[in-house]
């Protein structure tokens, strides 16, 4: 009997070892992304030496900050097997309302941020209710609400823009101010990433989101309230979009009706690059951060490299397609490895 146990433990030990190896392979994505980014940076630096200057890096990260804030929210939605096409419109709506409030009442910037977030959450809850309670497919529900939010923005703005001279300095300083020498936008993004990292990895709710995406049936059996989770993720993304709306307007010092048109696709592209699976269940904060960084670098570097503006769209599309296809191939080989390891 004892012999048996020892032998078994032996086998299991072996097993665990190869399991660890596998776990490393599945981390390959992030590693691969980092390697890719490093090579890309080296290449860009070689072509244009002003790329890796502190100033440029600062600019690049500041520009990618809003994108990365949205991406982490979108990740949660994608993890639950959903999608949200309305965020560009939410950004415009919240940005427009806040800018108008600022121009008329010169409110405290913190209050404005709060208002922006609340507007976003309201929009997000609307998305969530249509999806969770009424059961409309996410792509259709958010598509419809995208139209509604965008239309509302135009109605509210009445075709006018809110320009920088109408905004208070304190409002503009949301995006230009610094904390310990770091731009506020970066600080906000970092704070959000820390919060999300914590919530996703260290709270029950965070894990429940993944459970719902990984296996909705089992989630139900485990007593997880799927509707609650769905509404939560859509309103979270809504809130982040509302925040992004305020930051956007503050950064560019202008609120327009067509702000951030089509931005949702860029955000989704970041998530896909970052290894978030649209089939749900999988996606890491670190991956999304790297995805945002990669796209930020691309957006920063294509002009630096003197790439014709007409090639930029094509390059972006090709990189996204190649990234997702590579991801699939890697995953397939991992699965195959799993099978080979099995007894027959």
């Amino acid at each position: 009997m004892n012999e048996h146990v020892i032998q078994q433990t032996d086998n299991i030990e072996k097993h665990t070892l190869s399991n660890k190896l596998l776990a490393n392979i599945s981390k390959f994505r992030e590693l691969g992304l980092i390697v890719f980014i490093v090579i890309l940076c080296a290449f860009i630096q070689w072509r244009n030496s002003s790329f890796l200057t502190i100033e440029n890096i600062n600019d690049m990260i500041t520009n990618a900050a809003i994108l990365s804030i949205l991406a982490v929210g979108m990740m949660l939605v994608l993890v639950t097997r959903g999608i949200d096409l309305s965020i560009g419109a939410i950004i415009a709506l919240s940005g427009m309302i806040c800018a108008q409030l600022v121009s008329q009442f010169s409110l405290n910037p913190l209050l404005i941020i709060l208002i922006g977030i609340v507007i976003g959450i309201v929009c997000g809850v609307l998305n969530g209710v249509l999806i969770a309670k009424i059961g409309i497919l996410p792509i259709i529900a958010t598509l419809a609400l995208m139209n509604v939010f965008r239309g509302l923005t135009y109605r509210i703005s009445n075709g006018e823009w809110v320009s920088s001279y109408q905004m208070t300095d304190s409002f503009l300083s949301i995006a230009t101010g610094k904390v310990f020498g770091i731009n506020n936008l970066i600080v906000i993004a970092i704070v959000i990433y820390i919060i999300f990292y914590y919530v996703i990895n260290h709270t029950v709710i965070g894990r429940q989101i993944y459970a719902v995406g990984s296996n909705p049936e089992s989630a139900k059996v485990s007593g997880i309230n799927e509707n609650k989770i769905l509404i939560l993720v859509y309103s979270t993304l809504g809130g982040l979009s509302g925040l992004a709306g305020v930051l956007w307007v503050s950064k560019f010092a202008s609120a327009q009706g067509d702000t951030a048109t089509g931005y949702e696709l860029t955000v989704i592209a970041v998530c896909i690059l970052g290894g978030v699976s649209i089939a749900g269940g999988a996606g890491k904060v670190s991956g999304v951060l790297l995805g945002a960084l990669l796209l930020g670098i691309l957006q920063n570097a294509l002009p630096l490299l003197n790439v014709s503006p007409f090639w930029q769209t094509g390059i972006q599309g090709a990189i996204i397609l190649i990234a997702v296809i590579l991801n699939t191939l890697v995953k397939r080989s991992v699965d195959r490895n799993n099978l080979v390891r099995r007894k027959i």
Partner: protein
Amino acid sequence: MNNKSLAEENYLPNNLANKKEFSLKSFFLQWEWLLILILFLVFIINSILSPYFLDANSLLGATSTFLDKAFIVFPMALIMIMRDIDISVGSTVALSGVVMATVYNSFGFPMEIAILVCLAVGALCGLINGLLIVKFKELSAVIVTLGTMILFRGIAYIILEDQASGNFPDWFNYFGWGTAGNIPFILIAFIIVAIVFTLLLHKTTFGRNVYAIGSNPTASRFSGVSVDKIRVIVFVLAGVMAAVTAIFLASRMGSTRPNVASGYELEVITMAALGGISTVGGKGRMLGTILAVFIIGFLQYGLGLINIPSQTLLIIIGALLILAVATPKLKLPKFLLRK
């Protein structure tokens, strides 16, 4: 009938009816009736609001203002019945149109050849989508077509940069504007395509297989339906219809640019969803889709006649879409429920 007990079931005669009974109730409880009602309402409201609306000429002429993108609705309906989606169609329109113009203008081929090339490019775009989707089943159609959407548009920009390309022959430009009697060519083309697709979906084995795939992909595959082949074919059809749209669009504008038809995919999906094409697959009919095309088209046209700002139109169409997909999900009174 649903809750017939096992015992009862076992006593049923072993003689099955193979003629369908006609039930007036289920006949009138079809989605299409609601659409006809909405279309009727659109007509009534529009004719009250604008004296110009019910002018026979303008009514027929109006169809040419919204029918260009409507060609894509048919393959999109097939795609959505199969539980897929294609958001690259707008970019396909742009790319195939741009290639057509380039082949005609820069390479000096005759327009007839250019049109064929345009259709071929559309088909190729669809083929790429279809193959990527069936070869990488782990990726959903949303991801693949999101990628190709950006890629196709990007290629169109690489070819034409920010230039327009036109100078098509007169007969080509007449194509999108001409009428036979009072009826615009584009309406005739639409009717032909509508009939072809309606027959394809409802009267052929191909259409039956499309429904089968949408209702239960696994069971279809197990039953020997060539699921992959049919999916690829349907995406190719979408590409071809996008190219048809590109031809009409180029003809109507006398030129084409890389930035045309942006956002068409969303309008087309809206039409299909309103037409009762179930977004989870397996359900929906062509008649509903056709009705939805005219509902949205005449709504836009009619409200345009009374000069409603386009932003209000956005809101109305968004709300209509939500209403359309939400209505069947809401709990209807019992007597209204079908089977």
